[in-house]
Every structure is written in structure tokens, then in C-alpha cells.
């Protein structure tokens, strides 16, 4: 098990007014992402708790890429990971941002 944080500064505030959302399931090869509108509008943060150790470098690359691609300003993400591949992590993060754009 490994836990770490990745922070970022982005250009735009995330769209929408929803306060929180959750997507995905912590299962083998999968992950859950809890997202909360809890930060100043140019900051974002991901708390990662993963069952698989030794991939911090890839996690950081995936998350930074996601910050650049989605500009999720103001959002704090918390991840419980069951060993998901980077593609699944990206998909979940993108889904969580989309959920924050929708009505609760």
C-alpha cells in the first residue's frame, strides 16, 4: 500500500456547481474517485491511496497530464485504488470532472 498527494495549479476553475461526486469502485484493476469542490479556483489536488506500490512516477505523470487536459481548478480528488492501469485512472478522473458539471 502506498499513499501520496499530487498538487497542481491550473488555468481554469472546474465547470459546474456541484459540491461533490463519487465514481468508480475500489476493486481489482479499478478505483474510486471522490471529488469535492474544496480548493481555491486555480488549485487542484489528488490524494492517492493505492494497493500497489512502486508506480508513483506513473501516477504523477497521469495526474499532471489530467490537470493539463481537464483544468479541474478548485477540485480535490481522493482516490482509493485497487491496482488500476493508467488508462482507467485517466478515465475515472475525467468522469469525475464531468460529474461535477452535472446536477447532483
Amino acid at each position, binding site marked *: *500500500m502506498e499513499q501520496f498527494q499530487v498538487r497542481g495549479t491550473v488555468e481554469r476553475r472546474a465547470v459546474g456547481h456541484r459540491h*461533490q461526486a*463519487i465514481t468508480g*469502485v*475500489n*476493486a481489482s484493476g*479499478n478505483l*474510486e474517485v*471522490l471529488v*469535492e469542490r474544496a480548493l481555491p479556483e486555480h488549485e487542484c489536488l489528488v490524494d492517492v*491511496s*493505492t*494497493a500497489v506500490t512502486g508506480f508513483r512516477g506513473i501516477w504523477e505523470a497521469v495526474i499532471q497530464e489530467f490537470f493539463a487536459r481537464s483544468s479541474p481548478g478548485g477540485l480535490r480528488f*481522493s482516490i*482509493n*485504488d*485497487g491496482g488500476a492501469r493508467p488508462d482507467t485512472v485517466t478515465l475515472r478522473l475525467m468522469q469525475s470532472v464531468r460529474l461535477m458539471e452535472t*446536477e*447532483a
Partner: protein
Amino acid sequence: MSNLLQPQEADWYEASARERVAGLLDPKSFAEFLGPEQHAMSPHLAQFDLTGAFDDGIVVGRGRLDGQEVFVAAQEGRFLGGAFGEVHGAKLVGLLRAARDGAKRGGPLAVLLLLDTGGVRLQEANAGELAISEIIRAIVEVRSAGIPVLALVGGRAGAFGGGGIITACCSRIVVSEHARVSVSGPEVIETNKGVEEFDSKDRALVWRVCGARTRYLTGGADRYVKGRIQDFREAAIALIPYAPPFELATLKAEQRRLAERLQRFGDCHDAPEIWRKAGLPQPERIAEITDDTFLAIQRPKGADHDAR
């Protein structure tokens, strides 16, 4: 452009616990208790090198079903097999106790348990087991207070172990074909008693022994539905008014019902033997036929009952 499926159109088996709740209840009526933002997580998993879930694998809350207030709990069968741990179990206990206490003030109309569980979570086995016992006791209290408790089963984990026992403590049980309801899982029986006793790889056999069709035809489930969330919703709405009271007469009737089942079918080892004895047409084909054909079958005498 949105390609999103309407939640109630979605498939129960494929849906997450949250998606099931969203589709089961009236749109946007669900309010969660102790939601994931509160991080009520299991403290016991880290020592097994496992990450937790923000809701510990169960969603509890209230909402409206066809306009009426209900309580609902949904297990996430993909997180640790939907198994009962300390927090997971206590959330359900708390919900049931709140329903019991609420009865004096007029609510809720019913408690819906969306079970999807392999039973006790090994990593916190004692807490999980005791929680199951507490849940059973709480279900009895809720039912004694005049509030029906419904079990809805159709997820990938089924309802095994204590989950199977909880299912049968409920007032009414709804299943879809995917549902398996049992105590010992096939793998457990195979491990302990050998492959001759139960070949857990033989999926068709597993479903004949533990599956929804067998439960429905023998009276172990009250309603068999096709797999959409909408189907479960409609069944729940239809069944709530017909929930049996929790009283001596009900349990005496259940005693007769179960004794009679044992007497009639006690020497059977596979489902088709039961169907043959029960006089059902083409007993060997019952597992094969489509849901529509299956639903057209006349259930054997005694399978439709209030004795639960």
C-alpha cells in the same frame, strides 16, 4: 450531446450500488446518510495491505419510492465482494434502527436492502459476523414495528453466507436471474468436501443449486424479475403492500412450509429432480429457457406464500 442511459433503464447486474439506488428510487429523491465525504472507512484493511472505500462498500440513506418515503441500503458487490465488515455492517444496523425508531413517527414505508455480498469480510470476520447478527435482530425489530423490509438481489456477488440468511429474514425477496442466494458458496463446499460434492467450476450447476430460478420456484424468493433496475423498482412497489407481518402465525406457516419442502424434496440433489417431482414441464430445460418463458411457468403449489 449526452449518451447517458436513463438510470432506471440500466441493467441491475452491471450497475454500481449508487446507480442501483438512483434508478430504484424516484429521480433525485435520494439523500445519503454518512456519505463518502465523511470517510467512514474500515480501519482494519490497511494491516492487510488493502485500500478501503469511502463508504466501506455500502450506501445507506432515504428517498422516495413512487412518492413514498423509504430507507434504502445498497451493497457494492465489487468492493471486497460486498462483504460485511465493522463499519459496513454498522451502517446498515444504524439505518434499520432508525427505521424502527421512526415507525412511531410514521415513517418509513419500507426498508429496501439491495444485497450484493459474499458474506463476512475475512479481514474483520468477527465484527462482520456480529454485525450480521445485529442486522438480523434489527430487521426483526423493524418488521415487528410494522415496516416491511425487502431484499433485492441481482448483483455479481449474490447473497452468500450471512447475506443469504439476512435475505431470508426479510419480508419479501425479489431476484433476477443473476442472483445466487445461499449460505456456503460453491467454492467453499468444494474446498471442504471435494469436487464430487460440488464442482464450483460448473456454472450451470451453481445456478441450478443457488440461483434465482431455483429460489423462486421453491418459494425462496417472492418475485423473479428481468434484469433492469426498473424491473426491481416495479416489483418493490408492488410487493410492499403485501409484506407479511412478523408474528407467530407467520413463522408457524414458515415452519410448515419449510418442513413440507424438506419432506417433498429432501432427497433431491439437483434442481431438475425437484421440478420433476413438482410436475413442472421439461424440468431439464428450466435453466435454459428465456426469462419470458420462465415467467410464464406456473409456480409449484406453496411457492407463492406469505410465510416468511
